């Protein structure tokens, strides 16, 4: 659950506007390069100088991965119901409504059907802009229904994960979404329908420990933070500094937990090729 501690602003063409006076430019977090937003969009929100992958939202991934206008969203307006009447320094119900307003999203995942190079897929994409991409009942339910759609229609499933983990404000309900989505994936696997999991920065906690790690093929964007425990917690526990590159995509590749790292510009073609092989 890294979302609440992040020190830097989310990087997206929308949220970055504040940094640069006329709102036309973005700064690369990695190398400091100033890039015009038009250029950045043409470059699929990657830095032309150092290949840093800017954190982007579900709409951008939809435009990158799916054929134009092919996405039909399912359960679009499903929203959280605050089952525990949870309150910390703020009421969860208020947090939800404020986030819906601010982010233009209903919750932390968009699910639906679309096409990749003409081939039908069920497509889910998480969104870090919604309470850190955290998984509560809505994310769990929408992902589960998307898996069911793939199961019933016998079409491949692609999920792009981007999440700080399970959503604390729904307590045990959030935890159970891990089990819920995994049981559905087990059924999908028995039916031999392919599931490709794409990991974006960051994918941690309960999402990693459930559907994100259960793809037939698991791929990740470069340098994405991927893990179970957050780096801060680990550092606190062991009382030592963490090694360079720890819990990044390259580290997971080296340790055998992902199949390959994909540049955003090749993402669509790689997904298309994999789907072609597996279905």
């Amino acid at each position: 659950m890294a979302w609440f501690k992040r020190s830097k602003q989310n990087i997206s063409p929308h949220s970055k506007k504040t940094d640069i006076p006329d709102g036309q430019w973005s700064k690369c977090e990695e190398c400091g390069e100033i890039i015009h937003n038009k250029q950045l969009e043409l470059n699929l929100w990657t830095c032309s100088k150092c290949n840093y992958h800017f954190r982007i939202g579900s709409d951008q991934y939809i435009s990158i991965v799916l054929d134009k206008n092919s996405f039909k969203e399912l359960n679009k307006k499903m929203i959280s119901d605050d089952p525990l009447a949870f309150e910390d320094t703020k009421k969860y119900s208020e947090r939800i409504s404020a986030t819906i307003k601010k982010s233009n999203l209903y919750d932390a995942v968009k699910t639906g059907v679309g096409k990749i190079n003409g081939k039908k897929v069920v497509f889910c994409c998480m969104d870090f802009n919604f309470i850190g991409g955290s998984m509560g009942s809505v994310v769990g339910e929408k992902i589960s229904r998307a898996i069911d759609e793939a199961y019933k229609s016998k079409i491949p499933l692609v999920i792009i994960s981007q999440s700080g983990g399970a959503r604390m404000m729904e307590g045990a309900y959030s935890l159970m979404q891990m089990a819920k989505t995994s049981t559905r994936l087990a059924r999908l696997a028995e039916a031999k329908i392919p599931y490709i999991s794409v990991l974006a920065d960051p994918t941690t906690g309960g999402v990693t420990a459930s559907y994100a790690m259960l793809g037939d093929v698991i791929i990740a964007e470069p340098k994405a933070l991927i893990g179970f425990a957050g780096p801060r917690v680990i550092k606190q526990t062991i009382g030592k500094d963490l090694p360079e590159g720890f819990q990044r995509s390259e580290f997971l590749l080296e340790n055998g937990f992902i199949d390959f790292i994909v540049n955003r510009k090749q993402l669509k073609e790689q997904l298309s090729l994999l789907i072609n092989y597996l279905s």
Partner: protein
Amino acid sequence: MAKNILDFEKPILELENKIEEMRKYEGELDISNEIKTLEEKVLQLKKNIYENLTRWQKVQLARHPERPYTLDYINLMTIDFVELHGDRLFKDDKAIVGGLAKLDEYKIMIIGHQKGRDTKSNLYRNFGMPNPEGYRKALRLMRLAEKFNLPVITMLDTPGAYPGIEAEQRGQAEAIARNLFEMSKLKVPIIVVIIGEGASGGALGIGVGDRILMLQNTWYSVISPESCSSILWRSWDYKEQAAESLKLTAEDLLEQGIIDRIIPEPLGGAHKNYTLMAATLKTALKEELSQLVKLKPEKLIQNRIDKFGKMGVFVE
């Protein structure tokens, strides 16, 4: 005299000490009536306290260092236990134990988190915090159970999966995810019992099953009250409020439809009477087993998928 007294238990101890003190003079003075009155008072006080525990107090009881752990239940409930070790991939994780056992007429595979009692055994057990090999050992034993058609019982009691460099390197997330996936389709009955702390993915990693039982004074949630406090309140001082907000007790989870049944504990907690606690749990497990063993694997798995499918609250 009992050690490990929790703050809210102090009035009980004071009264009990007083009774003990009076007993010393019982031979010389006629005070048996006074003692009797005090004993009744103590019982009343205990009922008062233990039946009105706050959520945080229950969390404290769930972590009580004298509570029975997995191996205690195995010793008290079963016979002929054969402990099985290792994940066949990397090593034997001491934070998860498991093996074959007989629960009266039922041959079972029993697996659970295992904490230690003192510094030395806690280090040996890594405080009940598994590494990936613990989850992989559990999975190996479950597959063995499936192969030989033995029901599985898992016992949850962990402060969480271990957050360490090597744990991440060896795929803590993958190990837990894999267990959720494989347990979803295991062809034998699985009964899950929360016997102490059910902390997040580290607990759920052996927690997918057909029946979920929770001992009366335990907790199960997505995060511990302390961590929740440190994240949402940005301070460690709000653990009581966090526990209240998380609604993490057995009663809460029954109401939320996440667990099936609460197993009552002896007055004062499971540690006050191991024999009674184990007997109560054993009876419940046998009742559940007698139902589950009648189901065909396909039905069992379908019910399991439906069971977890219902968990969650949202508005459409």
